[in-house]
C-alpha cells in the first residue's frame, strides 16, 4: 500500500472534477489529481508522470524515475499489491 505506482497522464478531465485519466502498463483508469493541481487545473499536463497512491496522484515525478520504478514493479510481477489492485479491481 505504501509504495505507490507511477502512472502517465493521458487526459485531464474538466478542471471542476479535478480528475485525470492515467495509464499504468496499458491499463487506463480515472484518478483524482486534486492533491497536485490548483483549482484552475494548473500544475499538471498530459504526458507527465505522477506517483499514484490508492487512486490519488500524490506527486509529479520525472519520467526516468517513473520508468525505472515501473520496470521494477513489472519485473517483479505479482507481489506489488498497488500494481495488482490498479489492474484488477473495477473502478467504482
Amino acid at each position, binding site marked *: 500500500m505504501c509504495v505507490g505506482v507511477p502512472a502517465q497522464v493521458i487526459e485531464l478531465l474538466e478542471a471542476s472534477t479535478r480528475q485525470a485519466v492515467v495509464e499504468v502498463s496499458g491499463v487506463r483508469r480515472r484518478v483524482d489529481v486534486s492533491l*497536485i493541481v490548483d483549482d484552475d487545473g494548473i500544475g499538471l499536463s498530459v504526458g507527465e508522470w505522477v506517483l499514484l497512491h490508492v487512486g490519488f496522484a500524490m506527486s509529479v515525478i520525472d519520467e526516468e524515475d517513473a520508468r525505472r520504478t515501473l520496470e521494477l514493479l513489472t519485473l517483479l510481477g505479482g507481489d506489488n499489491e498497488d500494481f495488482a489492485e490498479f489492474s484488477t479491481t473495477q473502478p467504482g
Partner: protein
Amino acid sequence: MKFVDEYRDPVLGKLLLAEIESLAGDDEFKFMEVCGGHTHAIYRHGIEQILPPGIELVHGPGCPVCVIPMGRIDDAIAVAETHGVILTTFGDMMRVPGSKSTLLEAKARGADVRMVYSPLDALELAVRTPEQQVVFLAVGFETTAPSTAVTVRNAKARHVENFSVFSNHVTIVPPLQAILDSPGLKLDGFIGPGHVSTVVGLAPFGLLSDRYRKPIVVSGFEPLDILHGIAMLLAQLRNGRCTVENQYSRAVATNGNRRALAAIEEVFELRPHFEWRGLGFIPHSGLRLNPAHAEFDAERRFEVPGIRIADPKACQCGEVLKGAIRPWECKVFGTACTPQTPIGTCMVSSEGACAAFYNYGRLSQRRGAIPVRSR
C-alpha cells in the same frame, strides 16, 4: 560486493558501498527503516548481505496494516455484520486476524465485505446503491489519509448520506517517539519513509534529530536509494551532525504537499489516544473525523463494540514492530505463522517485516548472511 551487479547501476552501487565501508570502519551501527516499503526492498534485494557486518538494519512500525490492533478488526466485523451495510476496504485488510475471525471469513459467513482500490470507489459504490450503507474501513499513515479526506469532502459536497468512514488513520512520528522512549533499543538513526514524506515534508522529523539526537535521512525505494541513505546517515554521524536530510528529493519536497496537508486538516482531528498493535496506546497518534464531518464517522453511525483485545500470546508482532526482535526470532515464524495462515499482522501485508522475510528469506539464506532459526 558481488551482488551489487544485479543493481541497475552496479558502478554507482559499488561506489556507494565503498563509501559506506570506509565511513563505517569496524564500528557497529543500528539503523531503523521506518517504512514497510523499505523493509520489503531491503529483503528483496538482499541489501543487508552486502553491507559491512557492523551495520544492522531493524524494521520499524511503518506498515499501516501491521499496526492495527485486533479489537479494531472485531469492530470492523461488527459494522460489516450490521444489517444493510457494505463494508469496503483495501485487499490487505481482508486477511488481518481479529480475535475470532478475519473480514474475509466474515464475508464467507455472509457479511457484505468488498475490496476496493481507492476510497473513491467506495464512494461511487454508495452513490450507486442508495438503499445500502457503504462504510470505508480506512487505514494508513499521512500518505493515505489525504485520499480519505478528499473522499469525505466529496461525499459532503455531493450530499451522499449513505457513506461513512471507519477511520484507523495514524500518524508517523508518535510511534517513532514511543520507540525511542521505550528502554532497550539503541538506535543510531532512521532511514526515513519516502512516501509519507511526500505529504508531511521534512519538518515533523525534526523532533527525532532535535530532541532525541537521532539523524534521519528520508530515502527512496530503489536499492541505490537505500544505500545512499545509509551513506548519508553514516556521514552525519562521522561528522558530528544530526539533522533531517532528504535523499529522495526527486519526489519529496521539503515542505511536503500543502494540499494534502490541508485536506487532512480540514476533515480530521487527532484522537487523544490510539491503540497500536504491540505498542499499546500512543497519545495523539490516530486520526478521526472532526466535528464538522461527524456525520460521515462510522463510529458514530453504528454500534461499535470498542473492546480492547490483547494480542495473542504466541504473537510477537509488537517486538518486531519495535525492532526489538527480527522476524525469524518469533517463536511461530514460518511454522504456525505463514502468509497463508497469519497469526500476526506482520505476516499479512507484503510490506510487513515477517512476510517480507518469509518471501525473500530464502534468497537471503542462500547468500548466507542471515541466521535462520532451525526448524
